[in-house]
């Protein structure tokens, strides 16, 4: 017993010594690919930060963020949750067929009101036809894959209510996805839709704009990655799930992309293969977040303004088969008036297209009123 007590004491002290030493001594990252966010900066000591308690908060954040083997600890917790019989971790449901689906929470009504109002104002002043559509998440379209009775917001109800409130009409993206819900419309490990999901949405948009639908022979599926682990995977820490496949449907022939990542125009492309080397491989489409992006194609068709979130990155290749120009504005980064942009570039139509959770929470739609 005596010997064992010594062993236990030493074990504990070693654990308590090794963890902080490694945490302090090993090199620190400032960005977590796994979590797709900047990690906490070291706390700054000053009388002010001590008095306000800021120093203490920052120190606690720093320790949590830079704990040695952080990603592995997160995975161990996910595994423990699963082994304990849980059907979810960190708001992500473990679903049938190696699928991970993030729950959608009931939204904050005040922000929604503002966003609906912004879309209405934009529709009135834009000077071109404005369409509005919301994209449901996998939690709604793949509801049958969720654990039985798992709570999640009623997205279909929200989408029809919000579409009615904005009163500008638009494609029934939710219906188009619903009609194909047995197909691989979403990534199993990411919140985005796949090129196939985007394809059915594109058809709904084209039909609504009175343009010819996509024909099967125009599409040339090509697998570009078999090792994509998306954001929902990171959130759930569910490392036992097999990776996703990224497929493109449209070749890049004859298409010119003008990207604008940092305020200056650069030659971009529909697909950016270097992004496939990184963790967030979805950025392969158009190269990731940017305020403005213009896609010019040889197609004879109208010029479209797309007020969008990241779902549109993989939608644009499909739309480029029918629109001659697509101008994508991301209001998180583009702070000027969209109405003036339409006028300045002589655009013909506008489409406000968001995934439902983004639209429910986004605080930048107010810029539509400018």
């Amino acid at each position, binding site marked *: 017993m005596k010997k064992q*007590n010594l062993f236990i004491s030493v074990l*504990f002290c070693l654990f308590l010594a090794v963890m902080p030493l490694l945490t302090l001594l090993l090199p620190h990252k400032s960005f977590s690919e796994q979590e797709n966010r900047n990690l906490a900066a070291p706390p700054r000591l000053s009388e002010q930060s001590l008095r306000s308690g800021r120093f203490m908060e920052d*120190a606690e954040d720093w*320790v949590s963020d830079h*704990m040695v083997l952080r990603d592995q600890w997160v995975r161990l917790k996910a595994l423990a949750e699963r082994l*304990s*019989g849980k059907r*979810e971790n960190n708001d992500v449901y473990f679903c049938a067929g190696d699928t991970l689906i993030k729950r959608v929470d009931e939204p904050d009504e005040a922000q929604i009101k503002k966003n609906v109002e912004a879309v209405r104002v934009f529709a009135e002043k834009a000077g071109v036809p404005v369409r509005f559509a919301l994209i449901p998440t996998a939690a709604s379209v793949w509801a049958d894959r969720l654990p039985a*009775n798992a*709570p999640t917001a009623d997205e279909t109800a929200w989408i029809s209510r919000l579409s009615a409130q904005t009163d500008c009409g638009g494609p029934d993206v939710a219906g188009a996805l619903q009609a194909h819900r047995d197909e691989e419309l979403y990534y199993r490990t990411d919140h985005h839709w796949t090129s196939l999901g985007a394809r059915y949405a594109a058809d709904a948009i084209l039909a609504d704009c009175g343009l010819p639908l996509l024909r099967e022979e125009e599409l040339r599926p090509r697998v570009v990655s078999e090792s994509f682990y998306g954001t929902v995977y990171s959130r759930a820490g569910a490392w036992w799930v097999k990776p996703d496949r990224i497929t493109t449907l449209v070749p890049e022939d004859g298409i010119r992309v003008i990207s604008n990542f940092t305020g200056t125009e650069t030659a971009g492309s529909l697909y950016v293969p270097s992004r496939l080397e990184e963790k967030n491989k979805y950025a392969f489409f158009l190269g990731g977040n940017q305020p403005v992006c213009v896609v010019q194609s040889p197609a004879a068709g109208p010029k479209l303004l797309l007020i969008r979130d990241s779902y549109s990155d993989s939608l644009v290749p499909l739309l480029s088969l029918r629109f001659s120009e697509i101008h994508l504005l991301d209001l998180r980064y583009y702070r000027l008036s969209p109405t003036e942009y339409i006028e300045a570039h002589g655009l013909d139509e506008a489409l406000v297209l968001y995934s439902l959770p983004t639209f429910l929470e986004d605080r930048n739609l107010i810029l539509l009123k400018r």
Partner: protein
Amino acid sequence: MVFSTPLFLFFFLPVTLAIYYLVPVRWRNAVLLLASLFFYFWGERLYTVIMLLSTAVDYTHGMLVERFKRAGKLKKARLAVASSMIFNLSILFFFKYWDLLAGTLQGLGLRFVPVLGVHLPIGISFYTFQTMSYTVDVYRGDAKLQRNPISFGTFVTLFPQLIAGPIIKYKELGSQLDERSCTVDRFAAGVERFTVGLAKKLLLANNFGALWDFFKAAPTLSVGGAWLGVLAFSLQIYFDFSGYSDMAIGLGRMLGFEFPENFRYPYIARSVTEFWRRWHISLSTWFREYLYIPLGGNRCSRAKWVRNLFLVWAATGFWHGASWNYLLWGLYYFVWLLLEKLVLGKLLDRLPGFLRHCYVALILLFGWAIFALEDFSRLRAYLGAMFGLGGTALWSGVTGYELLNYLPMLLVGLLGATPLAAECFRRLPAGWQRLLRPALLLAGLLLCTAYLVAGTYNPFLYFRF
């Protein structure tokens, strides 16, 4: 700082332990005092002054009491005790109850008492009770005067029990302050106990807390959901609170102290009276020794005895938080305890054990509903849902999902609230025990670390106490 943060476990604790064991024995109290002040300052900053003030006041009052007693001036000694109590109860009242009182008065239309938005300093309910016990113990001759301000400061601020108990009476710790033995056996026992407490908090309590939060926030409840929710809260508060006490006792042992036990499997009680002998023992005995018995206890007329019981349970309830529902909760137990003492007791003795457990469980579940819902209109709605009033559905799909989702954890929790697992372990062959002890310990530490690092969900329940 709280125990269940990476900062505490991997920085504060190893550094404190290292310094504590590296310095000469006579400096250890000073190291503990400084570490505890740092621990408190980290979270409460300037409010540390109030704790120091309470420490200084009772240190000097102890001196006064002793001097008056020596001089045979018992009346003056009693005055000094009263002065200490008035001081401690005043700061406790001001920081904890002022806003409640002012808010209630304003609600009644009396606007002359302003709501000040007073910050409740963490642990004030614990350390004021501890410092008061010192002066009383010295007066009663139950404890020796502590002349060393560092040792006394260490008693009040001792970080393992500073912010959530157990409430240690001075007489239980006084001699350990001057002399205690730090042995490997005690250290290992401390490690074991601390890890058990950490696991109770991180692996169980937080889980049940998430389940309770779901039902608490649910826009509509089913009857089953309401019961499941309050069951989850019952398990959360037990594992949260007893886990914290385990961590405190464990840390104490690592530092050579032996703290009193605070929980003895309260949920296996066969009567409400027994439950209160097993739940938060350090608080019940505090009120018993420093309020109930001085009032006359039960060695007086029946009317006075009922009054004493009433006062103790009103105080116990109110001690738990500055909100009227806690008072109601205390009085709820006053009624049950009185009933058990007057009529139910003999009846219970004749009931089979199973029915007695059902009886206790029902009373506790309702009690926790009163405890958990501070807002009376929400409490009424919740109790209504438990009884299926107002057209509440019996069951809902979501309740079924949550039940299945948490079922294994609920079973572990229900079993873990009984001595069964510990008993099974004791009955294992010695060889198995030798193998399992370090293995379980390591597994527990690793799992807790995983939950600590990954967990964003880590609220402590009893900070408002």
